[in-house]
Structures are given as structure tokens and as C-alpha cells.
């Protein structure tokens, strides 16, 4: 029989439990709330996440070494690895770094691409938890065991971080790289609508409403865009300035032996791009359409060289960057590719003209696997 002693005890217990949560910086309301999606161009990077799987060592070694080696001591990098030997391998791979490394061991297969696994939503209150917002599922997980493991990474990170983070599974399918956010807007790749329409949402309006509810910023769904993640062809740099890739600009910067139509064989060999560079009008149109939509949205657009390959996946891109701040200084961690020096220099000049301090990251071994620096590193927290 329920007695007054039990009721009193339950009340005391509830009060004690809530007091414990309050003292540890967690309130019950935060179990269902979060702030806006984390901007990719504002604030100083404080906590980052990378994934490392030893079989991808050759793909990521130079990029991780350059990038992590340039980070300051007050930055924490959570390193998601399948097991301890993988983490030890990672530590020996990157060498001496000043940033703090924090292993998160999953005990299941993963890929080495962190960006697409989840999106960080800022805490609803200063003492609240970061929300790690994971998609409903991963692409191709039926035929790709590591990708099936990737699906669990959001939970792995939240579990490792205790009350500082919580993992939330979305009703929507997406890759983290399908979004590009700044302080005002979230740009969304058209393929996200394609993945969800008539499956998780009835139509375009439902999709936009559902997304805006979570990200808490204005959602701008791109009408037309290259069939890739946004970070491959555009970057919001703050102050309503958008960098958008331009294949024609890339073409104009190719070495002389690759210019013109008399060297089709040579052009195909440029930088080992599968099928050669894609300078077709159709592809150029997709990049231009992104630029036009950004302009129509109120952004000042600056074009930057890009060389997409005919496979539609491999890009020599200079917008796949990480943006940071140190006081008044704006810093860009910018990919470069050995063998594409003219392009590298031109891209660097664009960033410098925008007022950025450029820190170069060697992505020569990375781009052939359809991603680059921004795709490897996810940002959990900025100050």
C-alpha cells in the first residue's frame, strides 16, 4: 500500500536528483532542447572530432599532421578510433602536437570521415550540453560495414563526454556535409530533400519546416548544385560573404601543357583526376547556379578556382576548409595539392584578399577519396 513515508521519500529524492543535475550543469529541460546549429565561420575552435582507422593511414597522414600540428594547446581534439592500437597508431602518425588529444574508442568499425556523421547543435543554455545530431541512417551501410559503424559514432562521442554532450537521432536522412551554416543561415544540398521526400516527409514544405525546427536558423535549400557535399564547392566566410568554386577559373590556371583542346590526352592525366577535369557547360552551370542563388539570398559572392573531375566525386577544391579565429585574426586551414602549384597559389591569394591568415594543409593523398580537410574534421564546440 502506498504510504506517506514513500511519498515523502520520493519527493525528497526528486529534489535531490534535480539538485545534483543543477550542480553538474544539466537541467531536465535540456533533454529535449538545443540551441542553433553551430556556425562554421564564427568563433574560435575549441573542441574538434576526427576519426581514424589505420587502413586509411596513407590517405590522412599528411593532412592530420599539418592540421593538428598547427593547432594551439587550448584546443581539444577527440580522436574516434575503433580500438586502442588504432589510437596509438594515430598518435605516432601525427607526431608531436600542442593540442590536447582525447581518445574515444568505439570497438566497432568506422571510416575516417568525421564530418558527415553528425552535426553539432549549440547548447540551449550556457551550462547546457552540446547536441550531437545524427542522421536517421548512413548511405550504403548494407554494403559497407565501416559505414554501418559510422552510424553509431554520435552515440559513442556523447557517451564518452558524459553530461557535456548528448546524442540525438534525427528523423531525417542526411550527411553532415550536406549542410553549411553561418550565424544566420543554413544552406542545404538538394540531395537531402531527395533522400527524404515521400519517405520521412511528405514534401518540400514539411522538409523545410522539420529542418528549421532543429537547426533554428533560416534554411536555404539550394535549387541546383553539384551532386556533392556543400563543403566541396562553397564556403561561408562570415559577414554574408560566400566563396563558390568556379571550374572555368580553375581551367584558366592549369599549366600550359593542359590548356586548350590540342592536348586531350594530357588533360586527362592532370592530377590523376578520374576521367580528367570536368569543364563541361553542364557542370559549370551547377556551380554558377549556386553562386546566383547565394547572391539572390543577399551574399556577396567571390569565386575561387576549383577543378572537378569527370567522375563527379573527385575535386581539387579550396573551399573544403576549416575557419578559425584568434582574437581579431581570421585563420583558414587551407588544403593544397602537390602538383597543382598554380592553382594553390591562386586560391591562397583569394583567401588572403579576404583577410585570412592562411595555414596550409597537405591534402594530396586525400582528395582522390572524394573528400578533403573539412570532410575529415568535425567541430563540436567554438567559443
Amino acid at each position, binding site marked *: 500500500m502506498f504510504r506517506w513515508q514513500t511519498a515523502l521519500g520520493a519527493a*525528497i529524492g526528486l529534489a535531490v536528483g534535480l539538485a545534483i543535475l543543477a550542480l553538474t550543469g544539466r537541467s531536465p529541460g535540456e533533454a529535449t532542447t538545443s540551441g542553433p546549429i553551430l556556425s562554421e565561420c564564427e568563433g574560435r575552435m575549441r573542441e574538434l572530432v576526427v576519426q581514424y582507422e589505420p587502413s586509411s593511414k596513407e590517405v590522412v597522414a599528411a593532412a592530420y599532421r599539418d592540421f593538428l600540428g598547427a593547432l594551439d594547446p587550448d584546443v581539444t581534439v577527440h580522436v574516434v578510433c575503433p580500438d586502442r592500437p588504432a589510437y596509438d597508431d594515430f598518435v605516432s602518425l601525427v607526431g608531436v602536437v600542442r593540442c590536447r588529444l582525447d581518445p574515444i574508442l568505439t570497438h566497432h568499425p568506422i571510416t575516417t570521415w568525421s564530418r558527415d556523421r553528425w552535426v553539432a547543435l549549440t547548447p540551449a543554455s550556457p551550462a547546457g550540453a552540446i547536441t550531437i545530431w545524427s542522421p536517421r541512417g548512413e548511405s550504403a551501410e548494407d554494403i559497407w560495414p565501416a559505414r554501418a559503424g559510422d552510424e553509431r559514432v554520435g552515440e559513442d562521442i556523447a557517451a564518452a563526454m558524459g553530461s557535456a554532450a548528448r546524442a540525438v537521432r534525427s*528523423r531525417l536522412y542526411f550527411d553532415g556535409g550536406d549542410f553549411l551554416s553561418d550565424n544566420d543561415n543554413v544552406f542545404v544540398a538538394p540531395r537531402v530533400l531527395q533522400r527524404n521526400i515521400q519517405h520521412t*516527409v511528405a514534401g518540400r514544405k514539411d522538409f523545410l519546416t522539420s529542418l528549421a525546427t532543429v537547426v533554428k536558423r533560416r534554411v536555404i535549400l539550394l535549387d541546383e548544385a553539384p551532386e556533392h557535399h556543400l563543403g566541396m564547392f562553397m564556403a561561408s566566410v562570415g559577414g554574408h560573404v560566400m566563396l563558390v568554386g568556379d571550374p572555368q577559373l580553375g581551367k584558366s590556371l592549369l599549366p600550359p601543357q593542359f590548356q586548350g583542346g590540342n592536348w586531350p590526352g594530357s588533360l586527362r592525366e592532370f592530377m590523376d583526376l578520374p576521367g580528367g577535369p570536368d569543364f563541361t557547360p553542364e557542370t559549370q552551370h551547377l556551380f554558377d547556379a549556386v553562386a546566383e542563388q547565394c547572391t539572390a539570398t543577399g551574399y556577396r559572392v567571390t569565386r575561387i578556382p576549383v577543378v572537378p573531375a569527370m567522375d563527379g566525386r573527385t575535386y581539387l577544391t579550396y573551399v573544403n576548409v576549416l575557419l578559425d579565429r584568434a582574437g581579431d585574426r581570421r585563420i583558414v586551414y587551407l588544403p593544397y595539392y602537390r602538383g597543382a602549384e598554380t592553382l594553390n597559389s591562386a586560391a591562397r591569394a583569394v583567401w588572403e584578399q579576404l583577410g585570412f591568415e592562411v595555414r596550409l594543409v597537405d591534402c594530396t593523398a586525400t582528395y582522390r577519396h572524394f573528400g578533403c580537410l573539412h570532410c575529415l574534421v568535425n567541430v563540436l564546440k567554438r567559443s
Partner: protein
Amino acid sequence: MKTKDLLTIGTAALGTATLTVLFLATPRMTGTDTNPTTATIATPKLAANGIEVTLSPANGREFKAGDQPEFELRAVNTLNEPAEVAICATLSSSSPFSAMSRIPMMPATLWHQDIEIALKPNETKVLALDARTNLPANREISVSLSQVSQAGKTTVAGNPGNPAAAFMLQGSVPGIVALRFSTAPPKTAPTAATTTSGASVAIAALR
């Protein structure tokens, strides 16, 4: 107050406090933007010109590598007047470039067919579609339905690998992925969203 009362109060307080902290502070997967475990839409449907079009494997068949897939296309005129629509069905496959690649390769079109449908008021037609191609092994397979615009071009990504089709313009009728399944050896049934067990399988396989 007796010792027994204090013991009861203490036990209840301890239990409640523990449950409160565990329930509210433990990191866990939650679905704030609705429950992710259930399919919002069981049967993907392309709606254009008052006609609703769905696709399912013929006879509820489960496809595997090497099969030549056959489909049933069901068109329902929801209007009280005649209606017609031109649609395109596209069968595509994709696979990882390597275990280390960031995303799968661009989808390759295995087969596509333009279909013109004319229906009387409230009429329903079921059409048989024979893909006449063998499904490759270890691939993600999708079948898209999209409306063919008056300009004769699909209005949406019937084949995401085709840049000319890879857009979803405002004001156009968005295309849909009607079916998606894999030809990985041991598992994954075809994901006819209209089959009995299809709802959950379809969502599990939709990526």
C-alpha cells in the same frame, strides 16, 4: 517518527534520486524531431497532374544479384476528370569506390523508361515494367520516379549522376525514390513500401 518510517523515506528518496539522475543525465539517443523508428510515409508516391503513382516489385518478389527486376507501376487518377502525365522510371546502382572513400561513387543508370499515362476520371491502372537488365552484386539499387516536364526533361533527379537532372527547382514536382534496396549477399529484402513487411524494411534500406 519511527526508525521504520525513516528507513522507508530514505529508501524511496535514494531510489527516486538515482532514477532522476540516470534518466535525465545519461547521454542517450533521443528523437527530438519526431520518432525516427517509424516510417512517416509507408508508400512513396509521386503526385503530378492529379495522378498518384507508386511502384512495387512485381508479385512482391525479392530481388537479388543477377535478377532482371520487374515492377508494377500503379497510377490512380484522383480527379473527377480525365488526366494524363508523363513520367520517367530510372533504375540506378551505386557502390563505394573503396573502403576509404568518403561517399559512394556517382550512381550509374542501369535502365530507364519514359511512360505516358492517361486516365479516365478516378481510374486506376497497373502497368508492368520489365527492366531488362541484370542487377549487379554488392550494390545499392534505387528506382526513381520523376515527372517529365513539357520541355521533355525530367524535373528532378531520376539519375543523380546526371548533372542536368540533379536539381529540385522550386515550383516543380519533386521526384521520388520509390524503391531502394541492396544486392549484398546475405540480407536485405526488396523494399516494396507497399508489401506487408515493406514499411519498416523500406526505411531501413532508404539511404
